[in-house]
């Protein structure tokens, strides 16, 4: 009985706490590493098409052009805009726990630019202008990921131009 209360129960309690903490921490550590890697790049960063030599992110799609903006909302909200072409192009917003909290694509408002105002926990404005979509990140740091279809050389050329219209700026 003494061994149960003095050794087994405390050991199981420690194990349970570590278990919960580890499962909670894994996505946050992964996103921290992703953000640390992208923070060293220009924002936006336009990555080349994925190849076998690319081992930054698991399961890369070789049919997509990827561009990223690191989101640091500590100084203010981020204003993001892009003008899609006629092909698939999406903007996805990920929070610090790797959750895809928002996604818009070229068919969200066909023929119009996609404009997002991304706010963090401490930078929430009351409203956004009517042509801007307000996105609450829920964390101070996160990532904006653009995907543009590039399954053929023609698609790649068209969408290379489209993704170059991506602008990410901090509103202070």
């Amino acid at each position, binding site marked *: 009985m003494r061994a149960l209360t003095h050794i087994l129960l405390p050991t199981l309690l420690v194990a349970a706490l570590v278990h919960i903490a580890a499962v909670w921490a894994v996505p946050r550590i992964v996103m921290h590493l992703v953000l640390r890697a992208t923070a060293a790049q220009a924002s936006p960063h336009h990555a080349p098409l994925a190849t076998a030599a690319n081992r930054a992110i698991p399961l890369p799609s070789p049919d997509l052009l990827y561009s990223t903006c690191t989101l640091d909302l500590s100084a203010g909200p981020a204003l993001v805009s892009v003008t899609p072409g006629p092909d698939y192009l999406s903007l996805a917003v990920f929070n610090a726990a790797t959750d*895809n909290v928002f996604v818009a694509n070229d068919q969200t408002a066909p023929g119009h630019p996609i404009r997002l105002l991304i706010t963090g926990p401490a930078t929430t404005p009351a409203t956004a202008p009517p042509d801007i979509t307000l996105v609450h990140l829920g964390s101070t740091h996160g990532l904006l990921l653009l995907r543009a279809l590039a399954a053929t050389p023609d698609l790649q050329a068209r969408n290379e131009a489209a993704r170059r219209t991506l602008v990410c700026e901090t509103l202070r």
Partner: protein
Amino acid sequence: MILRALAILVIGTSLGLASALAAVWHLGGHGSVRVGPWITPLDAGGPNRGPYLRAAAALRATLALARQEAIYFRAATDSDGNTLQGTCTYLIQGADLPARWWSITLYGTDHYLIANPENRYAYASANVAHEPDGSFAIHLSPTRQPGNWLDTANAAKIVLLTRLYQPHAAAAAAPSHIAMPSITRQSCP
């Protein structure tokens, strides 16, 4: 007293980490949908995932999209349940998938693209050659095959990932009803 506390901390921490790893590995797929050899989590990237799927996706499919934007089906076996081998030849056969666009990509079991002289890693709805009846057939083989061919020569074991971008509403609502392609083993050394 100090030794006992230290032992409790070390053993408890080890147990906690090991059980967390095992739970993420096994429970990360809890609630997944299977269609033949293809398995999909109900929501690979959305904010309402459970903690184990969130951790598993972070490790194995970082930055996956929410289900309304993309559905991901992974296959590590053929349609008979045998592990996909890089030394074997397989035929993937199916019809266009219910999405704005789709792709089937070949990976090693480490989830990275496999080097090959053609730099061909995938087929998508935009570039796959269709059969006269509108279906498609893709060969997986370590040796050159006619038509759509993905080279498996540089991997011992392989996995496939099918992506459906902007899935049709019925497909997003019920991924288990999607008619996924078959994967048939044709030969093995």
